[in-house]
């Protein structure tokens, strides 16, 4: 598929499927959209509760940014699903990460960090879920260090932290029944590090997530 054809296909899917779905079922409208610089590379760090996170982020980005958005997705999980893997990795060019040693050391698998760097050099918006996995609904889990390694490689690229809440109520891990509910969305201010250590970056990011979490109502869910 040529690049132009691919972009056209992406736009069609976004406009005809993703956005109408997000509007009707998740209550996203153009006033909830993120403000993203038009064509500079950017890293989005998003907390992860549900498969719908990807769909929601796609519909919250302006179209121009959405077509140059590359998600980082678990290769070991999504390559197993036939049609979806084609859509995610071939059309939307998601970047696979490998979470087990077998895949990491396989000669056919390319290093994810190198792939992300390449995408950023091409001006992509890279979306990372630093929690690594969806975990329990609406509970934060520890952040993985991959993002700090990425920041150290590209100190000039800002990281925009985004906190989502509520999709764990719509479609949490391990559930098949989808319930249409409106998520809460909090976008932080872009973070930039000059000469920071790995632990400093992780600490800042975790702190940024906590302060975003505090701006949202936590009354929607009774943990029990």
């Amino acid at each position, binding site marked *: 598929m040529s690049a132009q054809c691919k972009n056209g296909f992406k736009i069609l899917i976004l406009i005809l499927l993703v956005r109408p779905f997000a509007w009707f079922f998740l*209550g996203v409208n153009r006033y909830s959209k993120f403000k993203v610089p038009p064509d500079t590379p950017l890293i989005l760090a998003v907390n992860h509760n549900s498969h719908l996170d990807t769909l929601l982020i796609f519909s919250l980005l302006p179209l121009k940014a959405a077509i140059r958005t590359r998600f980082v997705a678990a290769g070991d999980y999504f390559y197993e699903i036939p049609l979806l893997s084609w859509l995610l990795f071939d059309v939307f060019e998601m970047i696979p990460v490998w979470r087990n040693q077998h895949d990491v050391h396989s000669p056919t698998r390319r290093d994810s960090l190198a792939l992300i760097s390449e995408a950023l050099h091409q001006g992509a918006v890279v979306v990372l879920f630093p929690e690594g996995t969806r975990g329990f609904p609406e509970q934060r889990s520890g952040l993985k260090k991959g993002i700090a390694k990425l920041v150290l490689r590209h100190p000039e690229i800002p990281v925009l932290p985004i906190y989502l809440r509520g999709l764990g*109520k719509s479609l949490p891990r391990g559930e098949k029944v989808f*319930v249409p509910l409106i998520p809460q969305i909090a976008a932080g201010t872009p973070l930039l590090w000059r000469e920071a250590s790995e632990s400093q970056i992780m600490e800042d990011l975790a702190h940024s997530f906590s302060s975003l979490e505090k701006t949202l*109502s936590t009354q*929607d869910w009774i943990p029990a």
Partner: protein
Amino acid sequence: MKDPLIFLSAGIMFALLCFAQVTIEVLERLKPGRNLSEIRLRTRSWWIMIFILEAALFLGRSATLGLVTCLSFFALREYLSRVPTRVSDRKILFWMFLAIPIQFYLVHREWLIPFLCFIPLYGLCFIGIRLLLTGKIKGFVLALSTFQLGLLVTVYSISHIAYLVLINKSPSLEMTVGALLYFVFVTQVNDIYQFIAGKLFGKHKIMPSISPKKTTEGLLGGMLLTVITSAILAPRLMPLSPLQGGLAGVILSLFGFFGDVLLSAIKRDLEIKDFSQIIPGHGGVLDRIDSLTLSAPLYFHLIRYLAEGVPT
């Protein structure tokens, strides 16, 4: 055959909106320093909302029922997004959404008795039993009551608005829009009247802990104006006398007020300002239709009794 009221009401609404838009433009010119972006956004949303309503009425019965179904869906979605839910009750939310197509199918078939008893009887029982099956005791009463209130306010009550177009119609018409237009218009006008009366004469706060801006004077002054408007308007839209129109005005004004306060109380308790931001400048669908939630069923029964002479 189309009800001629559709075109008349569309014309009047168009004139009112033009008037509002012109007023904003003039104010902008006269006082350039004032920030009118909020009221501008609100008016923009009014254009869209009125366009959708009139378009649905013009397209006919199915479109109108479809529109009210969507409103009910949006309202339930907003409600369930915000109320505290136990993890174990997640699947019940799905069953609650399923009540919407069933309830509106009953409206479509004009099965009055199943329409009236499906949610309060079968729906609420079903939720109760389904909740028992989860086997979780802690928070049981709270969960049961939040779900039941949600279904009553957002599905049962709102579905009466759809049924309004099906009562009191002549054989030559597909539906009559008088009762619906009257209901929506008078409720909105009543909100404005209460706001203005409150601004002018407001002294005694009526419910300071829930809505600090609402006053007894606002409520009573608004009610008086609404009753007068009603007595003039009702005979022109429905087969009612001015006295009966005035009575409908009392119901809409008083229960419109309480519907508004009920939703405000829920929002206060949940510590949120609006249920969502789907309507720019207004908030969520549930914030927009809050005044209709309590008055819809009462008004439905009143109109059915007055216009058709049958108590339901």
